[in-house]
């Protein structure tokens, strides 16, 4: 109950502040297993992506989040675990060298869709559009070739909620969903990561100053 209310409140305020607009350019919202991968510049990124999905897809679409930030007990932990049903991963590899992607593997095996930020961390540089991708997305796509990788460009949210600022600016945000892709059987890691990155960048609006 509380989770539902909180989810509703978070979506409503995200929509109000950003005037959220979703453009399904390369695909349509449908109930197939997917990894939505997006550029990452704000803690609100996955909220906006989640909010732009139809309600029936949201419960099975889980954001992948860094345990170091989101795993803290209290409101943050409650929101990521109970409201968004997030998949928490350790970004700093601990000495016990287990597979850091194990929680994601479990979610995919269970048939869930994911929201993933392959840059691995927030891009806080105005000059750089997209950081290099971590290789996790390649290994996931190779292991689960039936899962569609959908690139999603999140425009403007970095200006709505700049790092370290409390008050959001009411600028308009647009999410562009591109054509799904998957790693080919014989595709090298670097080639695939470059292709995935290019597919995402192709959705970004024209640059200027």
């Amino acid at each position, binding site marked *: 109950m509380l989770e539902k209310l909180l989810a509703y409140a978070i979506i409503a305020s995200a929509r109000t502040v950003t005037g959220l607009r979703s453009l399904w350019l390369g695909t349509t919202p449908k109930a197939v297993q997917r990894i939505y991968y997006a550029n990452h510049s704000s803690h609100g990124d996955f909220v906006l992506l989640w909010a732009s999905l139809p309600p029936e897809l949201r419960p099975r679409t889980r954001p992948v989040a860094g345990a170091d930030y989101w795993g803290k007990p209290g409101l943050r932990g409650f929101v990521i675990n109970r409201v968004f049903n997030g998949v928490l991963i350790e970004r700093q590899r601990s000495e016990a060298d287990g597979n850091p992607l194990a929680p994601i593997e479990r979610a995919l095996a269970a048939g869930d869709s994911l929201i993933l930020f392959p840059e691995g961390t927030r891009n806080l540089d105005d000059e750089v559009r997209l950081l290099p991708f971590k290789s996790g997305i390649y290994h996931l796509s190779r292991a689960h070739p039936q899962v569609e990788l959908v690139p999603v460009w999140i425009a*403007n949210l970095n200006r709505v909620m700049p790092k370290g*600022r409390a*008050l959001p*600016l009411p*600028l*308009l945000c647009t999410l562009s969903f591109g054509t799904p892709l998957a790693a080919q059987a014989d595709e090298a890691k670097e080639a695939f990561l470059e292709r995935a990155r290019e597919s995402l960048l192709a959705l970004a609006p024209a640059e*200027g*100053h």
Partner: protein
Amino acid sequence: MDGQTWLLFAGIGAILLGASIIGAVLRWRVAPGPHAVIDNLNARIKAWWAMVAVIGCAFALGNWAVILLFYGVSFYALREFMTLMPTRRSDYPALVAAFYFVLPMQYLLVAIDWYGMFSIFIPVYVFLLLPILASLGGDAKHFLERASKVQWGLMLAVYCISFVPALLTLDIPGFEGRNLLLIAYLVIVVQLSDVLQYVCGKLFGRRRIAPNLSPSKTVEGFVGGVALATGIGTALYWITPFAPWQALLMALLLNVLGFFGGLVMSAIKRDRGVKDWGHMIEGHGGMLDRLDSVCFAAPIFFHAVRYWWT
């Protein structure tokens, strides 16, 4: 609302009804399937019904509702403008000031009828405050450009548009209690001019006025639209404090300014590589697409009326 206002809205309703019928007939006779121009025309007419309904409600509720309505209009316009203007991290304080301080303050000043302040608040005080705030970020890259983006956003979306409700503050002898009609006059003449320029351009448009700035503006559309809208503005003299010949000159002034407002805003859009400012009004684009002409016409109209009639 008094008798004249009712009559005016009844007239607008009749015109829209006529437009809706023409739209339906065109759809039925010319293009039963999808047709870009006719579909857009019908979407525009539908949106006009909604916009007239909103303005009508605000008029019925009185001056405060009209001021609040334009506060909202300015907010949406400023949001569209700043969304399309790339700014940097260090512009955050200036943008916060724009949305959360300058916008409400300007409308508050209009609401309390402090003419001496609302007429210079943004062009003087805020104009200087914004680059000060931007300089605090210590980022010199594109400094003048960034500062002027916020300045121009506030100038067009807030300052200029706030002169529409500011018409309520004018004390015109013999016109007491009827200032809402001045707003109606301004909005009707400027918007009709836009519509008639669009219609004349679609029907007779041959020579483009400024192909590099706005591909849809033609000499034929401009002349026909301005002439017709000026005629209608003259015929509407009975809702204004103007004599018929004065109404003619006022309408002409509004229409020419409105045209250049549209041209300037097209140049900004072109430079940013977009066709429309936004998507909030079906068939029209964004709030600013509908208001570009009002932005330029409103402050000059206000000062002309204030100079000669108060």
